[in-house]
């Protein structure tokens, strides 16, 4: 009976994925993509992956969603009502063009269909693997936290998590590398709408407190550094929208410190215990819980800083030719 929910959810997910790729207009695509993110989050809930659901909602639907929305600003000038005619003209143009593409398209569809059939068979016939639940359960008491997912993330596979924090920083560096970024000299015009201001001011502490709550609860339940980091990062984005560019208040060195804090502290702590013991990230079980909490807090700060910076930089990407001075 409850399988009905799953079937419906699966159909919804597939439909939304298809439509977000097939939609003729970009804004349709992006909104359907949000909906896809929400459907996926519900699917995680159904599969009992509450941590993943929070992460998905926060970063994949929320953060990425805002980034996509911001990108729409660049990409779809013809998306407004007045210019709909233009779209239809272009559609008919692309239809003409698509005739010559018929054969490759057909080949692609056939190839993908075949691939799908094999994939479905492979997934269907998968042997019972057993997983690592039992192993995780035995070692959980030694990990310093009670929540198995946090134990895996911050202790059993801390190395992956550390690299992942590095990847977020790297994402920011990569956005910098693309260029075209102008840092605001003066703050953008404050949100002219009193209601919006109030909402932003109201939600800032809510986001902060809820992020802190998720961070703290991470040791015993779903939550943790990434979710908290994204929520804190959302504060920066929200304030940016409200005309309060927090990041421009901090001096350069402090900004870099915040960005790298999580990564560096995580590593140095690992080196410290490597010098004392044998291996990187080998925490003494007695202090593991506390150390993990500290590492998570710093990681969340770094993630928040990086996400805010990624958004703010993308938002301020300016149209100007790359010239000799652009690389400052």
């Amino acid at each position, binding site marked *: *009976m409850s399988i009905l929910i799953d079937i419906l959810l699966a159909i919804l997910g597939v439909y939304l994925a298809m439509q977000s790729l097939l939609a003729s207009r970009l804004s349709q695509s992006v909104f359907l993509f949000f909906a896809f993110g929400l459907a996926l989050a519900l699917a995680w809930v159904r599969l009992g992956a509450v941590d993943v659901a929070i992460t998905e909602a926060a970063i994949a639907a929320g953060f990425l969603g805002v980034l996509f929305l911001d990108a729409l600003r660049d990409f779809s000038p013809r998306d407004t009502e007045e210019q709909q005619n233009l779209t239809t003209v272009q559609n008919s143009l692309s239809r003409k063009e698509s005739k010559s593409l018929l054969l490759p398209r057909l080949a692609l569809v056939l190839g993908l269909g075949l691939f799908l059939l094999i994939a479905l068979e492979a997934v269907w016939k998968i042997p019972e693997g057993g997983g690592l639940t039992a192993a995780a359960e035995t070692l959980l008491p030694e990990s310093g936290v009670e929540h198995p997912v946090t134990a895996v993330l911050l202790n059993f596979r801390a190395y992956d998590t550390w690299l992942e924090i590095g990847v977020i920083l790297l994402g920011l560096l990569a956005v910098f590398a693309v260029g075209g970024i102008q840092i605001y000299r003066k703050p953008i015009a404050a949100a002219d709408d009193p209601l919006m201001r109030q909402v932003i001011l109201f939600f800032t502490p809510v986001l902060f407190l809820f992020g802190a709550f998720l961070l703290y609860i991470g040791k015993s339940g779903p939550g943790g550094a990434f979710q908290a980091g994204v929520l804190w990062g959302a504060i920066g984005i929200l304030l940016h929208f409200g005309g309060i560019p927090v990041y421009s208040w901090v001096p350069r060195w402090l900004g870099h410190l915040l960005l790298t804090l999580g990564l560096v502290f995580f590593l140095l702590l690992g080196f410290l215990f490597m010098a004392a013991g044998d291996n990187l990230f080998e925490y003494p079980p007695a202090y593991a819980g506390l150390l993990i909490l500290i590492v998570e807090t710093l990681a969340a700060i770094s993630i928040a800083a990086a996400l805010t910076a990624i958004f703010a930089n993308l938002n301020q990407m300016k149209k100007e030719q790359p010239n000799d001075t652009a690389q400052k």
Partner: protein
Amino acid sequence: MDVFFIIVSVFLLLNIVLGLVRVWRGPTVADRLLTTQLFGTTSIAILLVMAGYLEELTLLNVAITFNVLAVLLVIGLVQVWKKKKGETR
């Protein structure tokens, strides 16, 4: 009781599916935005129901995450589109 919860969840999901029609028909961006709001509210309702059905109170945290991010998206969207209009004008 469980069966009832499932029926409610399925009903709410169908609600979302119906709402998709509006995303499809538009006609304005505002209409599409409106349906994302519909999705958001309905998903939160589904999460609440599932929290009772699965007896997993942590789902409430997921619901709060949905909440705050809905705010972020809406404010972001309006700001972004306003700025865009300001630029083109």
